């Protein structure tokens, strides 16, 4: 599903250049649930942003579902993001003046889907994350865990190939974190490919494979026995 080869990325700040990714190689197959670990500042988000086509690598190749991702103009990139990817952020990033339902419907809106169908689809995904009753609520009327569920429903709405989650539990307490991980595991069980960036060991062990990043290179990449979140709730 995802193939990256010798990926490099540096940030230019003033006169100094910060080489963040120094040749990353890895592949993710369909249906995998992978966590990317590493200390703060190790380049996890940078990697995920490149995978999410929100940013571009300086060198190396990236293929997503056999489509080479290279030199995309912003319009094509937007369409690819919409079609191929679902994003889950640490800070939820819901649109404050839109109801939960409308937030979930955003990717469908940008697909040009008619309102009626959009509402139906969004409602189905809200149901899936257990928030059907909260459809008309604004984000600030929801708890952190509920917000992240709405965000997950939104990420799923356009039925993307891959979900990219950057510290999805970073802003949540342990109990809520496990509930969210339970949801993510459930989605993965249905076959969705998911990448989770985290720096928490327990969260990482709820995935099936841990990629360890340090000083811009992968120092460890191994499959683990998945800990079911449900058991810990």
């Amino acid at each position, binding site marked *: 599903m995802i193939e990256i080869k010798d990926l490099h990325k540096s940030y230019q700040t003033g006169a100094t250049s910060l080489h963040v990714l120094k040749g990353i190689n890895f592949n993710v197959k369909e249906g995998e649930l992978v966590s990317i670990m590493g200390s703060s500042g190790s380049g996890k988000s940078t990697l995920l942003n490149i995978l999410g086509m*929100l*940013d571009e690598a300086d060198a190396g190749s990236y293929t997503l579902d056999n489509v080479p991702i290279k030199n995309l103009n912003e*319009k094509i990139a*937007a369409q690819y993001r919409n*079609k191929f990817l679902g994003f889950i952020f640490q800070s939820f*990033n819901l*649109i404050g*003046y839109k109801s939960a339902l409308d937030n979930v419907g955003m990717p469908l809106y*940008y697909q040009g889907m008619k*309102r009626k169908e959009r509402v139906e689809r969004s409602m189905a995904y809200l149901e899936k994350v257990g928030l059907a009753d909260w459809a008309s609520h604004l984000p600030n009327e929801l708890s952190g865990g509920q917000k992240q569920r709405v965000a997950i429903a939104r990420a799923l709405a356009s039925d993307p190939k891959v979900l990219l989650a950057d510290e999805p539990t970073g802003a949540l307490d342990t109990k809520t974190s496990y509930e969210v991980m339970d949801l993510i595991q459930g989605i993965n069980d249905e076959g969705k490919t998911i990448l989770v960036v985290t720096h928490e060991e327990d969260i990482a062990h709820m995935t099936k494979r841990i990629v360890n990043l340090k000083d811009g290179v992968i120092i460890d990449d191994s499959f683990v026995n998945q800990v079911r979140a449900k058991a810990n709730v």
Partner: protein
Amino acid sequence: MFSRDKWNEIIESLSSNWFRTILTAFGVFWGIFILVILLAAGKGLENGVKQGFGGMATNSMFMWAQTPSKPYKGLPKGRRYNFKIDDVTAIKDNVRGLKFVSPRNQLGGFGGSNNVIRGLKSGAFNVYGDYPEIIQQQPMDITSGRFLNYNDIDDKRKVAIIGEAVKTTMYDSGEEVLGTYLKINGVNFQVIGTYKKKGNGGGNAEEAQKEIYVPFTAFSQAFNQGDLVGWMAITADSQHSITALKSDVFDVIKKRHNIHPEDTRAIGNFDLFQEFNKINGLFIALKGIAYFVGILILLSGVIGISNIMLIVVKERTNEIGVRRALGATPWSIRGQILLEAIFLTLISGMTGIIAATGVLAIVNSFLDKSNASEMMFINPSVDLGVVIIALIILIISGLLAGFIPAQNAIKIKPVDALRTE
């Protein structure tokens, strides 16, 4: 482009901060309000002044004989000469593009002695010998009876059409006028009509009602004018301006009366077209000033909207980043910002137009109550053309207001937009 969803998006984001939206809208509201009021005021003044022309055929001139200032063909300067009735036909035959050439003779005038008598009443009035066309050159409302016709001319009938002021001087109120006789310089004329004039070339409206019109031929005969013509009222057709044809007319006269071709003083004239154009030019300038001032004020309103949109875009950087992560193309973001700006300008502008029209309606209802014919200011109004121009200006303004903010909105990379927290 104008799907319900797009509208919802716009309304949602504008209504997320009502107070600011309304404050922003006020600048444009004010600009267009001033523009419309200024244009309407200009129009009102124009209506008032132009009514002074009383619907006169403005493509006209009046022409009379003066004394030649140069000797020519053995004739001395300073001699007297007069237009003759044959001059009229000669002008008609030799100058193309003329609609009417009306010879006139005149008796009396400002401050003249009493020249009209009826029983014990007498008065001093301007008496004109005219052709029927004069009513098309100097319109008047026939308030009773009829105006001159060619039977009157051909039969040299001693008939007269009198002004309302003549009527009030020479008759008791309620007295029958038509069919009665007036003695003009000792000759009896039968009154066959009365008129009322609206204006007189910007001149005195009062004086314009103190005139008596009789057939040119009857005038010549009754007052021993022979074939003399006092002056002429000449109107050009709509394809020509009288100002352009003037010298051709003069040339005909000069040739027939042995006047030096370079003599500019031998023929006197009053060019209504030129005068009218001067006034017209004034109103065009006035309109220009109205647009200038209005658009400047509007511009400051537009800059206000642009400013607020910039702040809005800045505030919404994160939201824009999220939208782009979810698949919003640059054009959909840009389009949204532009539409918001246009929508805001249009709504506030339209409110301004409506408010201005309301104010004008109130002003008009007051003006209507006062005697409008005495006013310099009549029916200040804006026509549909002005409203359409204003709307076009508004849409363009909205585009301008939204352009920089829209560019700003997509300038930031999605990653950077998402990072700001």
